């Protein structure tokens, strides 16, 4: 494959992971934080930055483990799940300890969301998607960036809409979480329009 083909391929992966197969609205991963944290804008932005950082670094880590340890030793089908979740969990813990010590400001902005992330399905989901599609190192990073930007997009959209909804007259039946689900249904409908953009 020539270099320009490779670049086109990367662009395809990026668009497909961030918009066409949006991780929240089309693939339904990470719904807990999506519904739980979009009550206000600042917490959804903080969570999005934490997700971007952890997704990219953990997909680098797990790619190395997958391709240098698990595949050469033929242990991939048996040990993949266990090793991925342990590595991600301990990595997130380490980052949290480091941030607390090294940069309290950054810790305040993003660190409080880190414990939530360790069991977030997006992080683990990205690593499984990478390994299922046999992506190489750069493709995995692009996929991780695309997915986390798609997550940010969906979070910020829903947070903005919910800020407006607070002042509007929602039917009694849909008060609370229900209206957030209905709104995301309509957003998903809009995102469905991107389907078939890449052949």
């Amino acid at each position: 494959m020539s270099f320009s083909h490779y670049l086109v391929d990367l662009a395809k992966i990026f668009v497909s992971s961030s918009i066409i197969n949006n991780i929240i609205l089309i693939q339904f991963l990470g719904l807990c934080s999506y519904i739980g944290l979009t009550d206000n804008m600042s917490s959804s932005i903080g969570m999005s930055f934490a997700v971007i950082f952890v997704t990219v670094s953990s997909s680098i880590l797990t790619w190395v483990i997958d391709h240098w340890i698990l595949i050469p030793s033929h242990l991939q089908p048996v040990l993949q799940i266990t090793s991925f979740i342990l590595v991600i969990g301990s990595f997130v813990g380490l980052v949290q300890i480091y941030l607390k010590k090294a940069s309290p400001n950054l810790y305040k902005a993003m660190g409080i969301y880190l414990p939530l992330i360790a069991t977030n399905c997006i992080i683990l989901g990205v690593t499984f998607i990478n390994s299922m599609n046999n992506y190489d190192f750069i493709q995995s990073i692009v996929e991780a960036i695309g997915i986390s930007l798609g997550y940010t997009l969906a979070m910020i959209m829903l947070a903005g809409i919910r800020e407006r909804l607070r002042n509007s007259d929602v039917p009694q039946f849909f008060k609370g979480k229900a209206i957030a689900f209905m709104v995301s249904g309509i957003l998903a409908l809009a995102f469905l329009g991107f389907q078939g953009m890449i052949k």
Partner: protein
Amino acid sequence: MKKYLKIIWDGISPANPVLIIAIGLCSVIAVSNSVKSALLMTFSFGLVLIPSEIIISTIRKLIPDEIRVPMFVVVIAAFTTMSVLLSRAYFTTIYDVIKLYILLIVVNCIIIGRAEAFAYVHPVVESLFDGIGMTIGYGWVLTAIAVVRELLGKGTLAGIQVLPQSFQPALIMILPPAGFLMIGILVGALETYLRKKGDKK
């Protein structure tokens, strides 16, 4: 015996993990577009939840309090691996469609939640029945949503034509947005019901 039946019943209705506690929604929305995947998902879910609860409850006095969550995760990951390998071997066609969600059972909030809230503080037999109850509770909600979506979206049930050919299927029901809409209506109905119940008291 009555105590055990009550534990199972708790999982089915009063403490239903999906409806009342509203956790683990990711997989419910994602695999509820066909009855077959809903059943396979319930099967794999039970295969992870029940043995994990038994093992965690067996070793609960040996686990130091500070590292209990990593211990839970290791146990759950081991059983998820088994359940993934089993589904891949025996249900290959459905597995290929929903494999991501079966792999992600390992971070399903219901399982870690039950390990922490129930298995860690209850004896083995009660944990076994709690696992069975929670699996049934998860399964019936998932299957009920799947039945509605597949019936309206395709006119079939588990791949068998049920509605007459003249029925025009509403394709939207098996596409992602309908999952959100269904859950929205369900949550709304439930909150209205709880509010009415609260008013009476």
